[in-house]
């Protein structure tokens, strides 16, 4: 990291601060007054289904999309008036690759360096480092059109690093990648974080969020439903374990009465019920006993650790239930 602006911002412990941020497209409100703070050096996640407003939020942060109302500071500066200066210090990995298709891997990096007005010899050096870091050295002379999806993604990421950004914004960084390519990207992101880069990423992969994020907000329909650490959220909402029972939900309701205080949350989906608890074995014992009394049999029964997906389904599933009739909207 270079020492740009160190004197002024030494005291600044946050990188992004949004207050009552609103984004409206015509009559549609995509972001409905959210407030959040991204601390220096952390990996902050915006988690939500497609269409939740995640991309709208990050586009405002990197100065692409104008703020409708509210306050948005990046590095302590207002994005409305200081976009160029802010953009010089961030790296953006967009959802859709926008590499220069006709140019080679190395040329892509050098051309992009030009937009930051990085001197040629420094750009060449930086490009070499990035090719090495992103494991693209062998492909440096290859035209982008000939790269695989994973290689393209790594190049897009590498390109976003050309200016040594203090904040790296990634919009769905691994969507459409195979598991191997995805893990490769995650690995690099962890190394970047270790080197002090602040990461802000949007994702709808729960696994990605729990692997990478120190803190995250769950976004649904333009609003923040919850925020915290991945573990904290799991503990608060669903507890340590999930007991999955293959059972008709209508009959399963009868079981609930036997669970008592052990039960933190539950959900029913089709012919499966999931009970969340901190005391998996005990709950399992009780429910099995109760089922026997009632003469209900299970198709299957298993205990697994609870995860972010459970939190997510609980949070968004409930809000969907509240608006019965339009249940198809969660994937818009």
């Amino acid at each position: 990291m270079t020492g740009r602006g160190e004197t002024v911002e030494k005291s600044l412990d946050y990188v992004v601060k949004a207050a009552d941020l609103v984004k409206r497209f015509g009559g549609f409100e995509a972001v409905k007054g959210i407030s959040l703070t991204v601390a220096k050096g952390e990996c902050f996640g915006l988690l939500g289904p497609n269409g939740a407003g995640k991309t709208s939020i990050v586009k405002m942060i990197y100065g692409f999309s104008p703020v409708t109302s509210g306050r948005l500071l990046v590095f302590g500066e207002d994005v409305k008036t200081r976009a160029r200066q802010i953009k010089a210090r961030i790296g953006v990995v967009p959802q859709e690759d926008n590499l220069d298709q006709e140019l080679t891997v190395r040329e892509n990096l050098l051309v992009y360096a030009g937009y930051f007005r990085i001197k040629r010899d420094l750009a060449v050096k930086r490009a070499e480092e990035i090719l090495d870091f992103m494991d693209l050295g062998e492909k440096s002379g290859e035209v982008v059109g000939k790269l695989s999806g994973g290689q393209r993604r790594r190049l897009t990421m590498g390109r976003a690093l050309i200016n040594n950004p203090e904040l790296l914004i990634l919009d769905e960084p691994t969507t459409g990648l195979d598991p191997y390519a995805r893990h490769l990207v995650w690995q690099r992101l962890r190394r970047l974080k270790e080197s002090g880069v602040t990461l802000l990423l949007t994702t709808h992969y729960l696994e990605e969020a729990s692997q990478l994020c120190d803190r995250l907000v769950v976004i649904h329909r333009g609003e923040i439903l919850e925020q915290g650490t991945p573990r904290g959220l799991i503990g608060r909402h669903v507890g340590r374990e999930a007991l999955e029972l293959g059972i008709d939900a209508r009959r399963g309701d009868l079981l609930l009465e036997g669970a008592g205080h052990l039960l933190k949350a539950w959900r029913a989906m089709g012919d499966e019920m999931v009970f969340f608890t901190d005391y998996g074995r005990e709950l399992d014992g009780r429910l099995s006993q109760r089922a026997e009394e009632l003469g209900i049999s299970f198709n299957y029964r298993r205990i697994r650790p609870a995860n972010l997906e459970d939190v997510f389904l609980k949070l968004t599933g409930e809000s969907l239930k509240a608006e019965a009739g339009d249940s198809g909207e969660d994937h818009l």
Partner: protein
Amino acid sequence: MKVLKGLLKGAASRPDLSRPLVLKVFQRNLLVFRKTWRSNIMFNFVEPVLYLWALGFGLGMYVTRINGLSYIEFLAPALIASSAMFSTTYEMTYGSFTRMGFQKTFHGMVATPVSMDDVVMGEILYGTFKGVLYGMVFFAVVALFGLVKSPWALLVPIPLALMVAGFSILSMIWTSIAPNYDSFGYFFTLLISPMFLFSGVFFPVENLPPGIGFLPWFTPLYHAVEVIRPLVLGQVSWSMLYDLGWLAAFGALTVRLPMVMVKNRLIQ
């Protein structure tokens, strides 16, 4: 009216331009051009040569002299202008539309300190460069045929640049509202082809029917031909300054439009 207001929102504001970054955008396109020129030189360059051959040497045999000139002498200088016009308009429609929409190049650029105004200005600069380049390549052909009669012809790049800057702007305006590639057909059929046919390239505009004889005055191609033809033939006059002034004014008055229109399309 409301639609128009939406398209032109911000037209009265000052553009947010950084000269070095405009140049970076231009250089990016130049780098791509250096790799791909072989594949698109065909319709920008070979086609006007075919016109020169077919109409100049072929049809020209049957045409009596125009204003004391053989037909090919009359036609060749004007084809310099029209070939420049075509290369610019193709680049700034199909080319720019690809960069703007399909390749999302503009999006990539504005995620850096480059502003959208820089991007559009860089595009216009590139379209202008390309038009002048192809126009001058065709000029060389005209010279090879022995049709350049005067050293004044060395000034041809000036009217050429002013004209293709205008066409860059016009094309970018169309590109900014084009829903898809097919819509460029309208641009060429309704605007560019009629200009090509009726702006004094193939015959003097005085021969147009009286009711529509004033129309060529509104086209950049007409004014460029009015300057380039006398330069090539060595028949310079003060009235050429008027045409140069028209071309410069056209560019200056319209250049802000594509910037706001592209921005209003891409940034919401």
